[in-house]
C-alpha cells in the first residue's frame, strides 16, 4: 500500500468490488476493523448479561422471586435465600456512602473552589492514588490494622456514648458491618470526589463571578451559584460511588466477618453478595448452589449496570448543559 497514490484514481480491485468496498480498500478495512472492536465492546456487555442470566436459570426456576426474600442460606439442605447478603450489601454500602459522601464533597469543593492553584494538582493526584491502591491491600490493612483498632478503641467508645441505639450494641469484634462500611467508604471517596470535581469544574466561571460580584462570600457563591447548577451531576457522582460500593469484593470480604445473619448492630458480622461469591463459588456443592451464586452475581450485575446508566445520564446532563456564561 503506497501512501502517495490517490485513492481516487486507483482502480478498485475485483476483491474489493466483491466485498462491496468503496474508495481506498485500506480505509474501508481499517474502518471495519475498528468498528468491529467497538461493536465487540457492546456485544461483550450483552453477553455478560445473557451468560449470567443463563447460569442463574435453575435457581430462578426453583425459588422464583422468593430467592431474594428468603432468609435461609443452607447449601447442605439445598435451601437458598439471598436476603442476608442483599441486606449486608445494602447496609454496608449505605454506611459507606454516609461516611464517604460528606468527605468526598468536601474534597471536591476544596479542590475545585478553595485550594490554592498550586496545590490542586498534587492533592488531586494523591486522592487518585487512593483509588490506585489494590482492593486486597485495603483488605490486608483492614484485617491487621483497622479491625483491631475498631475492637479496642472505636467500638467501646461508640458503645459508651451511643450505646442506647441498637446500632451500637453487642460484643466488640472488630470484624463486622462497621469495618466493612469504613473500608468501603475509603474506596468510594476517590470515585465520588473525582467525578464531583469534574462536575464542579464544568460549572461556568461567570456564575461564580456573578455571585462574588454581588457580594457573596466564597461559600455563598458555591452554595447559591455552583451547587444548584451541578446538582444532578453530583447526584450522579454519588450513584457511581454506590455502584462501586455494591460490587466491591475483596476488602469487604476480608473484614466484614462473613456470617449470613441479619443483625441490627453495626458491630455484628455480616455478609455481602460479592463476598459470598468470592468465598463459596469455587467450592460450590452441586448445580443448584452454583446457580444460586450465579443468580447473586446476576442481580449484582443488573443493579450496578442500572445505577451506572442513571449516574452517567445525570453526570452527562451537567456537562452538556448550555454554557451559562453566554446567557
Amino acid at each position: 500500500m503506497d501512501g502517495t497514490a490517490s485513492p481516487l484514481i486507483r482502480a478498485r480491485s475485483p476483491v474489493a468490488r466483491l466485498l462491496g468496498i468503496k474508495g481506498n480498500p485500506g480505509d474501508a478495512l481499517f474502518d471495519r476493523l475498528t468498528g468491529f472492536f467497538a461493536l465487540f465492546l457492546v456485544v461483550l456487555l450483552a453477553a455478560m448479561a445473557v451468560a449470567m442470566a443463563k447460569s442463574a436459570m435453575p435457581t430462578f426456576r426453583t425459588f422464583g422471586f422468593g430467592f431474594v426474600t428468603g432468609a435461609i442460606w443452607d447449601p447442605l439442605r439445598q435451601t437458598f435465600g439471598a436476603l442476608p447478603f442483599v441486606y449486608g450489601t445494602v447496609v454496608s454500602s449505605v454506611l459507606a456512602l454516609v461516611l464517604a459522601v460528606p468527605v468526598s464533597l468536601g474534597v471536591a469543593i476544596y479542590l475545585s473552589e478553595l485550594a490554592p492553584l498550586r496545590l490542586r494538582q498534587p492533592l488531586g493526584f494523591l486522592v487518585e492514588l487512593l483509588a490506585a491502591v489494590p482492593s486486597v491491600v485495603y483488605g490486608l490493612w483492614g484485617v491487621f490494622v483497622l479491625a483491631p483498632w475498631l475492637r479496642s478503641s472505636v467500638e467501646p467508645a461508640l458503645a459508651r456514648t451511643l450505646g442506647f441505639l441498637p446500632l451500637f450494641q453487642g460484643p466488640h469484634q472488630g470484624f463486622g458491618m462497621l469495618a466493612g462500611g469504613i473500608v468501603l467508604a475509603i474506596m468510594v471517596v476517590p470515585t465520588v470526589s473525582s467525578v464531583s470535581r469534574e462536575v464542579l469544574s464544568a460549572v461556568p466561571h461567570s456564575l461564580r463571578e456573578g455571585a462574588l460580584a454581588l457580594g457573596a462570600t466564597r461559600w455563598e457563591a458555591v452554595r447559591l451559584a455552583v451547587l444548584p447548577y451541578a446538582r444532578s451531576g453530583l447526584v450522579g457522582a454519588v450513584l457511581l460511588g454506590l455502584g462501586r460500593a455494591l460490587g466491591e469484593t475483596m476488602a469487604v470480604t476480608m473484614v466484614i466477618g462473613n456470617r449470613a445473619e441479619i443483625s441490627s448492630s453495626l458491630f455484628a458480622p455480616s455478609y455481602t453478595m460479592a463476598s459470598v461469591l468470592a468465598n463459596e463459588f469455587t467450592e460450590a456443592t452441586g448445580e443448584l448452589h452454583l446457580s444460586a451464586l450465579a443468580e447473586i452475581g446476576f442481580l449484582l450485575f443488573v443493579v450496578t449496570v442500572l445505577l451506572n446508566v442513571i449516574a452517567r445520564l445525570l453526570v452527562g446532563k451537567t456537562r452538556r448543559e448550555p454554557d451559562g456564561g453566554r446567557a
Partner: protein
Amino acid sequence: MRDRFFRRRLVDRTVRGACLLAMLLALVPLVSVLWFVTLRGIGGLSWSFFSELPRPVGETGGGMANALLGTLELVGLACLFGIPAGVLAGIHLSTFGHSRFGRFVRFAADVMSGVPSIAVGLFVYAVVVTTSRSFSGFAGAIALAILMLPTVARTTEELLKLVPEALREAALGLGVPKWRTTLFVVLRTAAPGVVTGIMLAVARASGETAPLLFTAFNNRFWSTDPSEPMASLPVTIYAYAVSPYEDWHRQAWAAALVLVALVLVLNVLARFVVRRRWGLG
C-alpha cells in the same frame, strides 16, 4: 448589619475549614496504608521471597516467585488482547463518535467500567472455564483484559480528540490514506497520552483479585503454562492474609509492599510521561 456580616463571614470560614478538614481526612487512610505496608512489608523482603516457591503448609520460609511470575504473565497476556482491542475501539469512537452507534458504544464502555470485577470473573467462568473444564491462566488473562478494555478505549478516544484537526488535514492533503493518517500521524501524536491511559489500566489490572479467584485460581507451584491454574500476587495476598499462620501474614505484607510499589511506580511514571509531553495533569 455588622452582626449579619460577621455571621456570614463565620459561616464562610467554618465551611472552608470543614472542606480542608475533609481533604486531610481523605488522605489519612492513604498515609496509614502506605505506612503499614512499608513498615510490615519491608522485613519480609529477602532474596528467597523473590526466588523461591512457597513451602508446604506449616513450614516457615519460602517465597512467592511463582506468584510474581504469574502476575507478570497474566497481566502481559491481558495486555496482548486488551490494549490493541481497546485502542482500535477508541479510534473508532474518535472518528465516528457522533453517530448514534458511536454514542451507544461510548455509553456501553462507560457502563462497562462500572461493572463489578467479580461479575466479570463470573462471566469468564461461565464462558471460558466451564467450556475448557479447568481454571487457567488464559481465563484469568481474559478477565483482566475485559476489565482493561473500556478504560483503554475511552482514554484513547479522549486523547485522539485532543490532536489538532490541522495535523490530520495536512496528512490527508499530502495524499496519505485515512487509515495511515490515523495510525501514523494522529495516534502517534497522541501516543504519550494513550500510553499513560494504558499504564493506569495496567496498574489497575495488576491489583485485581476478585476476577482471578475463579478464573486463574491459584497454584502453589511454578505455573508458566497459561492453560493451567496460575498463581498471582493479589490472590496469594488474599489467601495468606486470611490464613492462620504468622509467617504467611508476614509474607502477605511483603507481597502487598511489592504490589503497591508496582502500582505506585506505574501511576507516577504515567503522570510523568503526560506532564512532560503534554503539559496536562
